[in-house]
């Protein structure tokens, strides 16, 4: 009986998730020209660094044990994972603003889980460009189908870690009031450290990549699996990404107990 209930709940959330996604997509496509400009603009943005890296590698050879293809893999995986996080959970980096403005009231009154409901109620248009960019790069790098499947799996796990980090840093606003400085820095740190070779950083600070700024689980460990298949390492990456997601949900729920309603009348976007 319990298993049937759990399955029904999962189905209900899957339907809710799909409905939110459809609504967000329709909303983003409402202004089609703007959508296309933002998507291609973001892809150009990311592609500029391909030029930088190709010129640099032409002068230096390998950097910190990474070749050009390895750095492109970091960019591809980070972009797609970051993109997926912002496409599906577009409010992840707006939570502190919702808390500060008292805008969580709308979600508290609805029957679905507050965090899932709030996160999925928005999509970031430019993130579609980030998401697509990784797959375009992968196509240029020329991998076989098993590597494409692996890449897709790591995009999902990376998106979970990105979302987890955003939710954790944004949830600090429940405890600190305004956490804009911390959340902005958290985003910059996790993005910056995920886009550059792990080997360029001093060994003494690499523990940070597997704890506070978990770029290791977003890109560095997946790259190792990509270079040489290791089921144990792949399972570790997936397990840790789920752990980050649950940790983020736990911290958000703990914070929610301290939430004070803004008594605002509003509607879901």
């Amino acid at each position, binding site marked *: 009986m319990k298993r049937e209930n759990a399955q029904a709940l999962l189905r209900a959330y899957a339907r809710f998730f799909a409905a939110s996604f459809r609504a967000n997509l329709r909303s983003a496509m409402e202004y089609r*020209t*703007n959508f296309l*400009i*933002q998507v*291609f*603009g*973001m892809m*150009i*943005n990311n*592609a*500029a660094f391909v*030029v*930088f890296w190709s*010129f*640099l590698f*032409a*002068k*230096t050879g390998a*950097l*910190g044990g990474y070749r050009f293809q390895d750095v492109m893999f970091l960019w591809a995986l980070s972009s797609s994972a970051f993109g997926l996080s912002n496409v599906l959970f577009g409010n992840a980096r707006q939570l502190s603003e919702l808390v500060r403005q008292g805008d969580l009231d709308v979600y508290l009154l609805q029957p679905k889980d507050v965090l899932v409901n709030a996160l999925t109620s928005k999509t970031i248009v430019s993130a579609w460009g980030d998401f697509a960019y990784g797959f375009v790069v992968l196509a240029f790098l020329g991998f076989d189908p098993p590597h494409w499947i692996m890449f897709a799996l790591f995009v999902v796990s990376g998106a979970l870690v990105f979302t987890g980090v955003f939710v954790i840093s944004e949830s600090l606003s429940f405890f600190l009031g*305004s956490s*804009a*400085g911390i959340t*902005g*820095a958290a985003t*910059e*740190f996790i993005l*910056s*450290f995920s886009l*550059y*070779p792990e*080997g*360029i*950083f*001093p060994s003494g600070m690499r523990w940070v990549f597997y704890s506070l700024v978990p770029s290791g689980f977003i890109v560095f460990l997946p790259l190792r699996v990509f270079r040489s298949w290791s089921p144990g390492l792949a399972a570790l990456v997936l397990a840790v990404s789920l752990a980050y997601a649950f940790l983020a949900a736990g911290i958000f729920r703990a914070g929610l107990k301290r939430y004070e309603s803004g008594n605002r009348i509003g509607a879901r976007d």
Partner: protein
Amino acid sequence: MNWLTAKRRKYGSSAEVAIRNRWAYPGDFLGLVITYGLFVFVFSRIWIAAYSGRAEIVGYDRSMATWYFIVAELVVFSSGNHFWSFAREIRDGQVAYSLGRPYGFLAYQYAQKMGLALTQWVPFAAIGGLIGTAMAGPLRFSAAQLPVFVLSFLLAASLQYLIQACLAMTAFWLEENSAFYWIYSKISLVLGTLMPLEFLPLPLMRATLFTPFPYVTYVPARIAVAWEPGRAWALVGGQVAWTVAVGLLAAAIFSRGVRKTTIHGG
């Protein structure tokens, strides 16, 4: 003379208002300074890895490459990206509000943006200087460089403003013009910001010198890290030429664009 004093007071006040607005919320600014510091740290590490086992690449040693990045990004971060607020003022119709006032729209915007740039560079330079000194040793800089560098920095900030103003003013004709800024900012990043022009293939480097991009970041950064008086003055001459050319273009775009403005009153 009275005319000049009045102008100076008028645009000086515009700059002062912008500065007061910015520093009323120092927390908002902190995020930018942290981001700049993070980029400086990451690129310092990249250059450490790149120079492992070699003393120089295309005439730059590690210290020069590190400080080059610090100065080039200092121009970008401290003189800011004006495109968004500029384009918004045109799209929202705020430009119409300024037409009836006793100041020129372009000069008023310039005074505001430059006023900000002149105060913003201090915290950026402080954090960049600290990280740069810790990672690559102090910047080798002589007193003779200072006036040329300051002039070059001011011209770079002005040119950056004028280029962004030209791009933003396409909002007179286009509802959505952000693509121009995306493309400009990325080309500018590759052509002289992230690394010195000398790292580019030679034909591309030569071609780049005929575009305005290197005169925004490459010239002040190059003058700061590699002092060759003759070349420095030639590069500053290029900056002056581009600043005048883009300034005239901006004035022409504004005078045509402003005819498209419709004032509804109210």
